Each structure stands twice: as C-alpha cells, then as structure tokens.
C-alpha cells in the first residue's frame, strides 16, 4: 500500500515535470521563431483583429460593470466612516493597479485563449497541423508567433482602454448616483496614482498576454482524442491561464511595487 502511494506520487511528479518541460520547450521555440522568415503580415493582422478589435466590446462592458460595482461598494463602505471623499481615490487605485489588467486578462483568457485552443485543437485532430509540417511550414512559426505577438501588443492596449472605461464607471456611480462633485472626482481619481502605476499595469497586461497566447496555443497543439479532446482543450486553457494570470499578478505586484 505504501509502495502504491509512492508509485502514484512519483508518477504524478514525473507527469507534472513532463508537462512543465513540454510547455517550456514550446514557449522557448515560439520566442525563438519570432524573428524567423517568412514574415506573414496578413496572418498577423488577422490575429490583431481577433485578439484586439473583436475583444473591445467585452472589455468595455466588463470594465464598466466591475468599476461600477466597485464604486457602489466603496461609496457604501466609506459612508460608514463619513469618508465618502476617499471613495474616488481608492477607486482610481484599484482600477489602475488591479482591476483593469486582471479583469482584461481573465476576460481575454476566456474569449481569446479558449478560441486559440479550440482552433489549434481542431487543426490538430483533423491533421491540418501535420499538413502544415508537410508543406514545410513550422506550425510554431505560422500559428503560435502571430497569436503571441497579437496578445502581447493588444493586452496592454485593451488594459489602457479598461482604465479609461473604469474611470467613467466610477464617475457614473460616484458623481451620477452618489452626488459627488465631478471636478473633485476628476482630481481625486488620480490622487494616489503615479505614472509608475500605469507602467506596472501595462507590464502586467503584457505578461498576461504572453500567458494567454502561449497556454491557449499549447493546449490546442497538444490536443488528442477527437471531439472530446477538442472539447477539453479550451476549458483546460481557460482554467490554466486564469490560474497563472492570478499567480503572476501576485508576484508581479510584489516585485514591481517595491
């Protein structure tokens, strides 16, 4: 019984190391392939559109909803201490430092990462990735690189959009509903913030973009077993990338805020 336990534990550790190694190798190959030729501008443009432009509505709506509900909570909380004026400052801090990059990352992992996993997974089980290989085309260069570049560029841009929308979400509640002065809100929102905070938010978004694209592509590329495999790939991609976004967020915050 003890041996069986150690057997199972050992197999689990080996499997985990195998998976980590596989991801690391594919990620390394993707970064190495970024500067390889031929450069496929059309393919890259399509990914910019899929990752960035098409994600705008969902990012705007979620950022608006989250910043509004956060403002409601802050207004309610600070009212208990007759400190309503602090609500806009904390709203600014929360939106810029955490809500905008994390919400954008999580939404994009659901919208874009899962789509990447499903698309590459379908290509894998229908032998389209083998067909690419046979046409002397490196699937890492053709499929992974444009998606990675698009996610690394678009996530920071979408995060900036999210911060802007977050400002107006807070404005709607704190000025529109709670009756604070628009002029005061405009000043207070940025009071606790420095330019460094925007930079940190964009760094975070950049890393989240990397995680989303690499995990999505990796899960799709390693799909096995027909329809069931294709069904599992996006789910697994969203769970894994969301988890890593939250873990990376903790470490990035700890590192960059020092």
């Amino acid at each position, binding site marked *: 019984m003890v041996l069986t336990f150690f057997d199972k534990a050992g197999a689990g550790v080996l499997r985990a190391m195998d998976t980590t190694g596989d991801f690391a190798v594919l990620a390394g190959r993707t970064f190495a392939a970024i500067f390889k030729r*031929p450069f496929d501008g059309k393919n890259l443009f399509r990914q910019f559109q899929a990752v960035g432009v098409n994600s705008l509505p969902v990012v705007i709506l979620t950022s608006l909803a989250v910043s509004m509900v956060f403002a409601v909570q802050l207004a309610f909380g600070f009212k208990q201490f007759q400190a309503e004026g602090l609500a806009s400052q904390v709203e600014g801090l929360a939106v810029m430092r955490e809500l905008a990059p994390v919400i954008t990352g999580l939404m994009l992992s659901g919208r874009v990462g899962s789509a990447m996993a499903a698309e590459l997974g*379908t*290509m894998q089980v*229908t*032998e*389209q990735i*083998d*067909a690419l*290989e*046979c*046409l*002397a*085309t*490196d699937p890492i260069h053709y499929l992974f690189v444009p998606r990675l570049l698009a996610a690394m560029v678009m996530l920071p841009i979408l995060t900036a959009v999210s911060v802007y929308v977050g400002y107006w979400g807070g404005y709607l509640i704190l000025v529109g509903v709670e009756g604070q002065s628009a002029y005061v809100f405009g000043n207070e929102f940025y009071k606790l913030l420095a330019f460094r905070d925007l930079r940190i938010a964009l760094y975070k978004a950049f890393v989240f973009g990397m995680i989303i694209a690499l995990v999505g592509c990796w899960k799709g590329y390693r799909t096995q077993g027909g329809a069931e495999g294709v069904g599992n790939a996006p789910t697994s991609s969203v769970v894994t990338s969301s988890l890593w976004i939250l873990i990376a967020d903790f470490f990035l915050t700890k590192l960059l805020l020092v």
Partner: protein
Amino acid sequence: MALIDVVNLSKAFGPKVVLSDVNLSVEEGESLVVLGGSGTGKTVLLRNIMGLLTPDSGHVAIEGKIISQLSREELFQVRQSIGMCFQMAALFDSMTVFENVAFGLRRHQKMTEGQIQARVEECLGLVGMKGTDALKPSELSGGMKRRVGFARAIALKPKILLFDEPTTGLDPVMTDVIGRVILDLKHELGVTTITITHDLKSAFIIADRIALLFRGECIACQPPAEFRENPHPVVQQFLRGDADGPFLQDPPPPKRKEAHA
C-alpha cells in the same frame, strides 16, 4: 541509390509494435502501392517517411539523407520535394480552395500573384477541379476534397508524392476517378509515388510494385503480376478478401450456416 530507402524500420507505441524491421526501397519514377489491413502500420510508415514520427530503430533515407538525423531546416528543405496527400485531405478549413493550393507557393516560392494564380489553376486542372477556387473546403464533397488535397501537394512540383488511403470512404465510381487522377499525375509529372490503399482494383492499375504489410512486417514486395501469384497464404487471403485464414489475429465470427448448425 534508391530515391526512398526504408531500412530496418521499427516503431512501437507503448507495448504495441506497429512496424517491425520493415525494409523497402523505391526507385526514381517508380510507383509503389502498400497494402495491408487496418492497423498494420501503413500510415505510420508514411509518417516516418515524412519525418512526422521518429523511428525507434532503423531509418528512412530520401536521396541518401536520413530523415531522423536532419535539422528542422534541412527537414523542411527535404519536405519541399515531397507532396503528402492525407486520408481526409486535411485542407485548411479557414481558407478557400485557391488559398489552400497557393499556400506552399506563397511561403516557399518568390512568385508574383499572377504566376501563383496560373500555377494554382494548372494544379486544379490536373486533378479535374477547375473553377472551384473560391469555394471553402466545407462546401466540397469527400472526393473533391481529396483532389484539392492532391492539387495542394503537387503545387510545389515535388519529386515524390505520398497518398494515404486516397480512396477510403468513397463510392466505387469516385474511387475509380481518384485512381485515374493518381495515374495521370504519375504519368504527367513523372513523380515517384507511394500509395497506401485497401482498394485492390486501383492498386493493380497504379502500381509498379505492390508491398503487403502484415503484423508490422513487409511480407511481400513485387510487381503486380508476381504479387497475384504469390503463394503466401496471407497474400492470397487478402486478394480473395476472405475472412477465414491467417490474416486476422482474432478468429472471425462463424459463417451464418455454421452458426445455425
């Protein structure tokens, strides 16, 4: 030196040995047909030739270059001289027929858009699929997809064409059409071909030599006339298409009359 040399090739997936010491060689311009039951390693053989799988032992050499020892860049160079036609065509479903056939040309040849257009039309013409440029793969029937797959494979003017079960799942008429297309390609392009098929009729038309894989081993490899006369019981059973004999590992269900008795 043969154009394709398969030397002592063995491949297993876990405990299941799929290919065991297979030796084959294909001369330039020759057409080899590989027959065998389902799961006897025919597709694995082609995937080893393309470098999509790495052999456990032995090797595959194309023009003397051992595939498993090449770097990625060298492998891609060799692959440009091989056209692979997949069992289910494996067309890129997000692209049109034109974009599928033009894919290799755009990536590997410095051609103008006009030259690409002309080459794609030429390739589609060779497989009898002219005028389908703007269609998506989902709008094509099974036989049409395979022929577009052939057109994509020949676009880069390869020296070698590999066909993986090109007629499986097609009706007898379309099977004959595909057989003729393969024969036309062979004669018009002068390419070396390896075709994997279950269809004996087209196999005997296409082949210069026929090989039979049985339980991972190549038990016969000879011209069609000699193959027909081969006394090996497995060859004869395969040619007869009879369930009784040494071909199946598990005994087949009894015939209906015997079952009643």
